[in-house]
């Protein structure tokens, strides 16, 4: 068994003068304190990557900087799925007695540490170096292609996609750490600058500075336990040119495997934490995961289904779209918020019942997927 015993999250946005290591250290310190542990208790470290400060051994760079000497440490790279992939690995590490308390940590000064062009350019390199990148695509363009096809096949409109941006912003209004805290409307999304049509600026997550961390332990360290009930992955392709048909993407495969591993059905889930790099990402993943029928996710947003007080509260911190996206830490914020909800510590964002949560992350262009079920125990 394994438990998420502590979580740490910085505000996302601008952190002038802070390095990736600074942001990792802040989040890591918060998570260890939240778990009621000391630094010396940590015997495993998993960390993400930093595009601003790439290093071939980031986990040991961090361990030395932070001041611990773990028995197990390395970095993990699966794009946006990295955070949940690390949670899955930490789960297996503690369950198989390799480590007792694994600190999973990521942080990046992606906004202030480099130009926005440099950031966009670095991320576009997930494309194929010979057959895609010379054509000048951007990450929004890769997802714009998916969006155009999804809209064509399932009758989804640009206004439908805009609903997800509005929902995430509405949730972010209640979180003091969110990067964007001005209310927006569907009309605002529709009128925002074209980026890679059909995606417009407000369909896209921002670039942020920030850090996030959590501790995965063999036993709970407090009265309310948050147990990893089961998790799984699926990897169908890297490049959008080689992606399978819509409806055969990896989310559907990984959720089927995770349901089997956890012995949980979608009808058991009370809280959703789903990757939302773009509005299309969230719409498509919700439908691939079975949290909405095909082509029906937007109407569920309109009916309040995913609101704080709805049947399936979703990304109550505001998600990547409005809390912000600092790289690997971005999707880890979803897990931090889920933990706060499950332990009844989400304050004015608290939902009624987060006893079983479904988390899902995606990396690349819907290339790599990790699904995870968390369960509250007492």
């Amino acid at each position, binding site marked *: 068994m394994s438990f998420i015993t502590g979580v740490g999250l910085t505000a996302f946005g601008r952190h002038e003068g802070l390095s990736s290591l600074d942001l990792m250290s802040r989040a890591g310190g918060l998570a260890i304190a939240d778990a009621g542990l000391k630094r010396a208790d940590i015997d495993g470290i998993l960390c993400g990557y930093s595009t601003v400060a790439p290093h071939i051994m980031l986990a040991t760079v961090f361990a030395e900087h932070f001041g611990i000497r773990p028995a197990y440490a390395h970095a993990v790279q699966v794009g946006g799925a990295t955070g949940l992939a690390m949670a899955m690995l930490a789960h297996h590490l503690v369950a198989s007695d390799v480590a007792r308390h694994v600190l999973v940590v990521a942080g990046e000064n992606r906004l202030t540490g480099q130009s926005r*062009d440099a950031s*966009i*350019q670095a991320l*576009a390199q997930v494309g*194929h170096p*010979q*057959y*895609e990148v*010379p*054509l*000048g*695509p*951007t990450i*929004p*363009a*890769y997802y*714009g*292609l*998916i*969006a*155009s*096809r999804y809209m*064509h096949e399932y009758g989804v409109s640009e206004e439908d996609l805009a609903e997800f941006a509005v929902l995430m912003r509405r949730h972010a209004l209640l979180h003091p750490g969110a990067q964007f805290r001005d209310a927006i409307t569907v009309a605002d999304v529709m009128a925002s*600058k*074209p*980026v*890679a*049509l*059909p*995606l417009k600026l407000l369909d896209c997550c921002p670039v942020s500075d920030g850090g996030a961390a959590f501790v995965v332990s063999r036993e709970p360290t407090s009265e309310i336990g948050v147990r990893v009930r089961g998790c799984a992955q699926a990897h169908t392709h890297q*490049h*959008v*040119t*080689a992606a399978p048909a819509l409806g055969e993407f990896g989310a559907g495969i990984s959720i089927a495997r995770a349901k089997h591993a956890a012995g949980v059905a979608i009808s058991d889930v009370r809280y959703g934490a789903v990757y939302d790099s773009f509005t299309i990402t969230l719409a498509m993943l919700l439908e691939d995961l079975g949290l909405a029928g095909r082509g029906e996710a937007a109407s569920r947003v309109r009916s309040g289904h995913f609101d704080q007080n709805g049947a399936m509260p979703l990304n109550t911190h505001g998600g990547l779209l409005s809390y912000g996206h600092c790289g690997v830490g971005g999707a880890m914020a979803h897990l931090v918020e889920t933990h706060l909800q499950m332990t009844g510590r989400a304050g004015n964002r608290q939902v009624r019942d987060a006893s079983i949560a479904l988390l899902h992350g995606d990396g690349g262009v819907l290339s790599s997927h990790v699904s995870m079920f968390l369960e509250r125990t007492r």
Partner: protein
Amino acid sequence: MSGSRQPLADWTSGAEAIVYQSCSACGAIQYFRRGFCARCGALDPAEKLASGTGTVYATSLVCRAATPETRAHIPYNIVLVDTDEGFRMMAHGDDDLCIGEKVMARFVLFAGRLVPHFTRTRS
């Protein structure tokens, strides 16, 4: 069109051509060049010249580019085309292309390199 086991020049190396590979062992075709078939592993798939015709699968009009070289071209339409030979490829296309339209490739200069650009065929 006869198969060749010699690498054929294509747009990725500056020639006005689209090339794909065909496995003589299992019959699979692939677009990204490799020294083996990604389905069955057989070595040296045959190289074939594509006709340049196909159907639009997806489009995204790029209005925000990341480099000075590509910014000079905005807006430009990134498209995925399902070729008549059966493989999918990324390319440029006319700005007003719609999903499902029949298209044919020509070659244009983009950011200093030759790239395939699809135009609607009249039928």
